[in-house]
């Protein structure tokens, strides 16, 4: 699965100013709301579901990357947003590093396979250090989108 298959371009946010975990998650879901991927009525329910999942164990997967996620019946296909934090967010990651790259995923309850393939794609691409550092340095959503497209075209695969 490619980034462009699940990342909502209009929901990409760079230089986010909030640094508390819950505020960052809210910012990312608000971005999906503003780009029409989820509805106003579903907003709180999605936020709650994502925060509940975080309580079970952090989705900070290392190398400054986090993948907050949930299943939610309000979506019919995998919906994702990307945010970049320059300052870093304390996410209780296993490796103790602050998180700079966030990929938030909402998947339909009956499609665990898509979710797994999205995680596989994100983690494989982010193993590449230059991709990681270019993403962290991105100043605009357009920069991020360009990098995601390049990654999709295997330009970072070593």
């Amino acid at each position, binding site marked *: 699965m490619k980034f462009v298959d699940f990342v909502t371009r209009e929901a990409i946010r760079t230089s986010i100013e909030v640094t508390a975990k819950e505020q960052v998650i809210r910012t990312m879901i608000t971005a999906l709301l503003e780009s029409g991927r989820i509805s106003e009525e579903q907003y709180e329910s999605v936020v709650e*579901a994502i925060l*509940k*999942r975080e309580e*079970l*164990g*952090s*989705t900070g*997967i*290392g*190398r400054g*990357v986090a*993948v907050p*996620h*949930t*299943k939610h019946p309000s979506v019919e296909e995998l919906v994702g947003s990307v945010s970049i934090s320059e300052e870093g967010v304390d996410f209780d990651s*296993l*490796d103790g590093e602050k998180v700079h790259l966030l990929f938030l995923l909402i*998947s339909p309850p009956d499609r*665990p*396979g898509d*979710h*797994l*393939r999205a*995680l*596989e794609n*994100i*983690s*494989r691409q*982010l*193993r590449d250090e230059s991709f990681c550092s270019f993403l962290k340095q991105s100043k605009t959503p357009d920069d991020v989108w360009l990098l995601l497209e390049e990654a999709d075209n295997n330009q970072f695969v070593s």
Partner: protein
Amino acid sequence: MSLPVVQRTVKISNPQGLHARPAELFARLALQFDSKIDVIREDLRVDAKSILNVLTLGAGPGTELVLEASGDDAEEALEAIAQLVRNDFANDETLSRESPG
């Protein structure tokens, strides 16, 4: 004196595969051992102690993975990890059908 290297094959059988929560449990358990531990899927070999690396395997239900450990506690490490996989990561009450990990 070279360190012993042990291998073991495990099969992922939980219905959602090795997604984020199982990958975390997997890496967290591997971290408890001093041995170097790799997990191998076909031609992809990664460090078992990193969630990010474990997720790159994209191991869905039915996938066979080879665990390889080298070090003084290699046997013990593989036994513990194999058990975690065999139990479908069941010591984790969070793997309800409601929430993908």
